[in-house]
């Protein structure tokens, strides 16, 4: 059993939707039938401090946290949090950051997390239907449209 594990770390500041984004990724992977683990620490971090959350899926996953230097993808919602989390990314890992998103295409800055997931999705083998269903399951209905728009915008990044 050596099928490859995909390691994703999502980071930003409290209140930006880091945990929501990691919930959506984990849900998408889970609904695609993959073994998945997700780690987060909340509590103090809710008060505007640094927040990060790890999602690992595929193959046999033990630790819920991504070991240092082993993240395939680092998704960062706040530019100044890149250096804080850079050590987790593996050498040829992919950094996905806000500068990749055309903000004029977002209805609200609060959708940045989902837009970055759009950018992430282009690197993963999960289907668009899977992503869209996961986004809908994790957000209230009134936010579906603007977030699906953000997802599409992110895919174009």
């Amino acid at each position, binding site marked *: 059993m050596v099928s490859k594990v995909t390691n994703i770390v999502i980071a930003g*500041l409290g209140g930006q939707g880091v945990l929501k984004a990691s919930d959506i990724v984990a849900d998408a992977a*889970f609904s695609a039938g993959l073994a998945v683990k997700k780690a987060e*620490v909340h509590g*103090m*971090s809710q008060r505007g*401090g640094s927040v990060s959350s790890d999602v690992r899926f595929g193959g046999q996953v033990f630790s*819920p946290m991504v*070991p240092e230097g082993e993240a395939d993808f680092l998704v960062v919602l706040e530019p100044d949090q890149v250096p804080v989390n850079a*050590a987790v990314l593996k050498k040829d890992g992919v950094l996905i950051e806000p500068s990749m998103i055309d903000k004029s295409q977002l209805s609200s800055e609060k959708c940045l997390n989902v837009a970055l997931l759009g950018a992430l999705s282009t690197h993963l083998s999960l289907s668009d239907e899977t992503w869209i269903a996961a986004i809908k399951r994790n957000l209230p209905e009134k936010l579906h449209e603007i977030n699906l728009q953000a997802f599409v915008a992110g895919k174009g990044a």
Partner: protein
Amino acid sequence: MECVTSLLSGDEAVAAAALDAGVSLGTGYPGTPSTEILETFERLGGRAQWAPNEKVALEVGIGVSFAGARSLVTMKHVGLNVAADPLFTVAYSGANGALVIVSADDPGMASSQNEQDSRRYAASAGVPMLEPSDSQEAYDFMLRAIEISERWHVPVLFRMTTRVCHSKTLVRQGVTPVPPPREANFVRDIPTRVMIPAYARPAHRNMRNKLAQMAEWNEQEGPNQTIAGSPSLGIITSGISYQFAREAAPEASVLKLGMTYPPPVETMRQFAKSVERCIVIEDGDPFLVEQARTAGIAVEGKAEMYRFGELNVGRVRRILAGDCTPEAKPVPGKPPALCVGCPHRAVFTTLKNLDLIVAGDIGCYSLGVMPPFQAMDSLVCMGASIGVGLGMRHTLPPEQARRVVSVIGDSTFVHSGLTGLVEMMYNTPESGHVLIILDNGTTAMTGMQEHPGTGRRLDHSHTGKLVFEDVARAMAIRNVHVIDPTKDPKGFEDLLKKSLEIPEISVIIARRTCMLAARQIREYERCDGQQSN
């Protein structure tokens, strides 16, 4: 029961198991990372309530158990200190219906004031302890804990850690059902439940006998697991450390302990004998190392430097390699801060401006110690602000004593500030004292839980309300003030200065709703209004 697989946090998995096992009542006090257990239990349809503190929660749980029903009591590790008094004696009297106590440890102190290891309590009180390593085990072990509790009539401690509580992993429910709960019914059993010395002496012997039986059972049938691997490296582990060890050393032989007290010593001995190098990988204290060595089993433990902070795959690799070189310091992230618009800001601005000596407490307002305020001079445990402030008042030279104030949040005041206030009224310092209750109308730090001062239960339904100003006045305290420092900062500063000048005791209630909770609270109050109309 239908089998379903879902992606759950460890906290959610415990709640699901409690529901599936027919737990009659879940009670506890909010504390990261344990809080979501009772919230989820309530959401799933279980009966859950917040107690004023963990001691009361455990006492309620004991009552449920004595009545023959199943109870779940939840808290964070430091809460177990508060509940320790009933714990040590219910270990003697034992349980009737299942009594499972979850203690969520926080190695690395993501949101706690210390790194204590709850396993010490299991050994010290003489109660069995289970340690899940992921959400599936959180579910399965909770069912086992209920069986163990009812089979031996003992309370069971259930140790989780931050990463088990808050990580989400797959959980298959409904595979191994437990026998249904009995009907609650009072059966008199005075020698078992009335711990006067005459009855407690045999009860202590009985408890030790049961522990010996459970140790034997743990050897044969306990929730422990051996993973065959290389004979050159053997790892004994438990809890989340198991996951790190498997990933760090996939080739190693592993003995994973699910029930760490009383430990399966012979199983550990055989395992250690079967490998060339046997090392214990555990978060927190060297608990299993000491259990093994006491039994004469030669095991290696982690180097002392790894006792601090939580383990992870990288650190376990270093431990296995015997690497004691200094670890790379992580790039510091942005520390948390009081929210913009937080009502505590006005209070801490004044405390800083007046250069007061501030005995602080546990909650969001602990962040008053951070820049730009740095207006907190002590933080010990829930409720300690009052006692610590009084002690300083009693002994500091007068010009310093008059600058001492105690600052406590609303939920913390209910938790363990009430007795501190009695002390303040009873052993009043010569210079008097000032207590500021920061009443933001919610248990904000742990995620907006209700408490007796909000007048709403865990499910936000209306109930009796503890009114702090009435409590203070009922304690014969004459200077009781209610003010909103955000709205009237000058008035607050004047009031505080005046209170510090007089050699009397004053209670100032700084009342303004947490801005994160305000909208939701208005909604609860609107619903209350409709119900009472």
